[in-house]
Structure formats: structure tokens, C-alpha cells
């Protein structure tokens, strides 16, 4: 198929449709409303269902019900809407149901504004809802990567029977880039023999997250924990740049800010300063071992985010006290500029 020019939001919607995500529930919110708008037009063409429902709370419960019935389901929203879904997401994780949740984050907290932010990192990575659970979290840095991660998100949701979050920000959702849709081949998935598809001729399947017996509840928690450990072994993804040469500074950034860092790295190189970049693609599980290894070759680590410092907590956990870990962030919807990153690197080198 020829390349097309798409907004991140449209591309995510099209890629999900091609990955068989034909059941979408949502409620509009800037800066991701184009996802719903695109699907309202596209779903009837492919026999799918776009349903705008009364609130994000309802969305989460629809995901629970439809996933429980064995459908490939997904939703998208932006920060405040995602917060409303958190109770349901905890139930979905507890009931071990597969679904994909796309968060095109906007600045906050509270109602905030409509401009981009990475302030939802901790919510996405550390739980968000109540109880001991994790979502697999994928963070695209380009429109093409958003396209490529959607089929993976659906596959891993089914494989782990766990919610997968695709965490972008307003810039990823709104910017346009050329994209192509490739075929993705994953190994066959196990049958959904747990789904509530009608129990004629078999024992009823029950989808629930109520455990009044502490022993049973603990069993579930240990089972979930084992699943997250398996993700840590198998699912860590990241991109490295310039790590094959000597460097003074290791930059760690994901999504939009990684793009800013790449431009900053070129400028720094022109000024005779060598930097390397580690860009996590999975935020949970976090590439902690690789961050540690790469940090050892640098004088210091600089994490750049559109927040007051969230992923930097995981970077510091990985690096420990072996190297200084500095942070640079902008908020309020302001994207750090390449020159700000350049200046920050130079300032720390001067110290």
C-alpha cells in the first residue's frame, strides 16, 4: 500500500481496525477526538462498531463486558478521561481481561489544557487504579511507530490476558507524518476458552473480581505478579542512538521528548559534545538493566520529560548512586525545545 499522510490519532484508529480492533467504545476529549471521529466513519465500512457512550466510566465497564465475552476491544481518551476509567481498569486487570487503552495525554492535573504532556507516566506505569496490578505500557515516538505498536498491543493484551496502555501525548496524536500499514504476523493465540460465550454443553465461565476468601485472593495476586515478571523477561523494548561510540552524556527520554533530544544531539555533536540516547518503548516493563549499563559509560544521565519528573524516578532506581541523574522538564503543554536540552547538557558539563 502507498504511503499516506496521517495524523497520529487517525493512524492509531486505522491500525487498530486493521489489527481486528473492531469494537470501540469512547467519549470525545481533545486532543484525541479524531480517533472517534475517524472510527465513526471507518467502522461501518469494515463491519465494526463505534459506540459513543455517556461517559468514560461507562467505557471502562463496556470494555470489561465485551472483553469478557471474548471480543477484541479498545478505547482511547486523554488524561482526565483516562482517570475516570481507572476503577474499571483495575477490575479488568483483576478479571484478567484483554483490552487496549490509548491515552493521548494532555497537560494537567485537573482539567488542565489541551496541549501535550507526559504527566500521566506514573498513572500508566505504576497502576493508576487500586490494587496490585500493572498494564503493559507502550510509548510511540512517531506516527509510524504508533501504527506499528497497535497490532502488538492487541496481541499482547490477548496473550497475557491483561490491559495494554498505548501512551502518547497530544503531539503524537495531532502531528502528521507519512505512514504505511504493514502486515504483522504473530504466533497463534490460545483459544479464549474462558470467555462467556454461552455455556451450552459446558460448565459456565464466570468473569469476576470478587474474592472474599483471602487464600484465593492471594493466589490471584501471585498469579498476576508472575505475569508481570514474565513481561519483564519478554517484553522490554527500547531504541538506542549513538551508544556504539564513546559518549559523555546519556539522555533518557520517550515519545515526543525523545524526538526533541534527537535534534539536540545533532547540535551537541556539532559543538563537540557526544551524547547517546536510550528511548524506552515499553514504559512498563522499564528497560532498567540497559539504562544501568549505558549510564556506566557516561559522566551523567539526563532525563527529559514533559512533566516535573516522573520517568526520572525509574531512571534513578535503575542507575542508583552509580552516576548522577539530572532532570529537565517543561509542563503546561510546553514542549522542551532542542536548545533548552543543549543548554542543560552544557550547564551540567560545566559543573
Amino acid at each position: 500500500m502507498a504511503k499516506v499522510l496521517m495524523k497520529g490519532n487517525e493512524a492509531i484508529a486505522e491500525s487498530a481496525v486493521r489489527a481486528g480492533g473492531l469494537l470501540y467504545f469512547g467519549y470525545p476529549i481533545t486532543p484525541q477526538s479524531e480517533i472517534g471521529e475517524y472510527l465513526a466513519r471507518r467502522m461501518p465500512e469494515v463491519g465494526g462498531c463505534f459506540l459513543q457512550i455517556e461517559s468514560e466510566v461507562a467505557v471502562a465497564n463496556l470494555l470489561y463486558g465485551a472483553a469478557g465475552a471474548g471480543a477484541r476491544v479498545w478505547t482511547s481518551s486523554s488524561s482526565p478521561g483516562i482517570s475516570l476509567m481507572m476503577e474499571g481498569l483495575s477490575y479488568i486487570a483483576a478479571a484478567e481481561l484483554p483490552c487496549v487503552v490509548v491515552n493521548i495525554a494532555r497537560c494537567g492535573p485537573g482539567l488542565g489544557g489541551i496541549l501535550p504532556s507526559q504527566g500521566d507516566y506514573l498513572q500508566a506505569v505504576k497502576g493508576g487504579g487500586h490494587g496490585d496490578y500493572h498494564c503493559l505500557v507502550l510509548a510511540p515516538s512517531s506516527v509510524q511507530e504508533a501504527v506499528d505498536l497497535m497490532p502488538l498491543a492487541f496481541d499482547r493484551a490477548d496473550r497475557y490476558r491483561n490491559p495494554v496502555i498505548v501512551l502518547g501525548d497530544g503531539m503524537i496524536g495531532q502531528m502528521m507524518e507519512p505512514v504505511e500499514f504493514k502486515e504483522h504476523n504473530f504466533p497463534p493465540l490460545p483459544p479464549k476458552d474462558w470467555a462467556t460465550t454461552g455455556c451450552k454443553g459446558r460448565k459456565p465461565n464466570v468473569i469476576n473480581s470478587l474474592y472474599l476468601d483471602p487464600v484465593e485472593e492471594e493466589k490471584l495476586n501471585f498469579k498476576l505478579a508472575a505475569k508481570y515478571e514474565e513481561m519483564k523477561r519478554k517484553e522490554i523494548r527500547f531504541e538506542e542512538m549513538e551508544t556504539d561510540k564513546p559518549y559523555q552524556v546519556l539522555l533518557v527520554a520517550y515519545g515526543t521528548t525523545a524526538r526533541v533530544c534527537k535534534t539536540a544531539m545533532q547540535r551537541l555533536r556539532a559543538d563537540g559534545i557526544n551524547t547517546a540516547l536510550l528511548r524506552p518503548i515499553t514504559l512498563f516493563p522499564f528497560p532498567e538493566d540497559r539504562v544501568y549499563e549505558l549510564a556506566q559509560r557516561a559522566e551523567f544521565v539526563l532525563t527529559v520529560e514533559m512533566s516535573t519528573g516522573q520517568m526520572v524516578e525509574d531512571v534513578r532506581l535503575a542507575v542508583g548512586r552509580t552516576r548522577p541523574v539530572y532532570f529537565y522538564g517543561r509542563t503546561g503543554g510546553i514542549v522542551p525545545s532542542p536548545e533548552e536540552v543543549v543548554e542543560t547538557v552544557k550547564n551540567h558539563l560545566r559543573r
Partner: protein
Amino acid sequence: MSRISATGSSEVTVNGVRWINAEEFFAGLGRVNIFVGGYGSGKSEVAVNFSLSLAARGQKVSIADLDIVNPYFRSRAARAVLEKNGVGLILPPVEIMESDLPLIQPEIAGALKNATSRLVLDIGGDPVGAKVLASLVQWLPGDDYNCFLVLNSRRPFSGSVLEVEKLIAGIEQSSGVGITHLVINSHLIEETERAVIEEGIELGKAVSKKTAKPIGFVAIEDRIFEKLATVDLPYPVLVLHRLLLKPWEENEKLGPRCFKL
């Protein structure tokens, strides 16, 4: 397919914006110039470059950002460059500029009636964005306007005659304004190749044949234009300089800070 060649044609360059073969086009240009089109077709980029080129020709011109559907990459993002180059701005108040409210500035009516200045209207995408025009139709100056449909054949729902016809009908119905010209703006940003532009022109010709709406001009980004060896088109060409950049993109002519959220 027409060979594209700039040789032997009239050329005017200002602010990195260039027009080729445009003298006749400018002679017949209306006072009010409206840019409509599909979502993400490049209306704002074209409208901003168009305004700059009018100002550079010594004309008094204002631009109104009437995008009520798109939250980012609107022409208001280029306000510093526009202002610096003498283009009047009709924009929402600064404190609510970065919102997604459907804001229509009251001074727009006055600007539409003001016969001493040209006006460029940057309208939001799709029929839903074009709705804003319906409230302004009453002030449009008779025949003294052009309504340009910006077309990028590589955008979703814009790749076939049927889809473009549907788009035209939708925009005309919701705005109450007839589209007078097509603007061919087929591109894939930095990945644009000659074939993409040619494909856009072919689609434009087919749409033109079906709808009797002529091709007003072809827009080609400067970096792409410079790579095309020969260019010879029977249409005016606007060689545009991208101004609505992503925060990490470099703009060597204007410096990296020209687009800042």
C-alpha cells in the same frame, strides 16, 4: 503528465515564499480569499504562505484563523512571522488562544466589509469546520472573493474523484459558499516525491473535469521543489516554506524558535 519546469517563467521570492507563473492569477484574485478543505489537507500552511506572499507584494492583507475544529498546528501558531511581515491578524484573545473553543472573532465582519484590505480566511477542515463560514456568508463581497479547496491526495478520504466530490458537496452545503478553485497540495512532507505531486495534479484535473472548478494553483514545499529537476506546469505554483513546524524541527530561514507551543 506535464513536465514541471521553472525555467522561463516569472518568479517572485519573498520570505522564502515564491510564486511561479502567477501574474495572471494575481490579476484575477478576489479581495477575500477563503481556504477550505479536508481535515489536515494543509489549509493553514497554504493560507499562511499565501498571506505572506500578498504582504510581500506590498498589499494590505489580514488573515483570520477561523479553525474551530483543530486544536494544534493552526495558523495562529505562525503569528510572530505573520506579524513581523506586516500581515494583520484576526485571532482569539491570547489567554484563550490555546483552547479548542469554537471562537469567531467579532471583528471578522468588519474585515469582510473593509474594501481597502485583502483578507485571507483559514477555515477548519471538513464540512464540520466549514460550518463557521455559514455565519459569515452575509458579509462576503459579491463576486470579489475566491474560495479555494486545498487537496492532498495522500490524506484519508481524499484520494479519489468520488471522495473529493463528496467533500466538496459537504463543505458547500455546510458553509453555503461555493468553492471556486482547487489547490493541489499533494505531499508526504519530507518524503514527497515527484510522483506524489503528479498524482495530485491528475486527481485535481479529474475533479476539475467533473465539477467545472478550475485548478487555482499548485503548492509545493521549497525543499521538495528544489529537488525536482524540471518543472513546467500550466498552473501557477506556490513554492511554500513550511512555517507550522513540529517543536523539534529546524527552520533554517527563520530559526528554530519560530514555532513554539
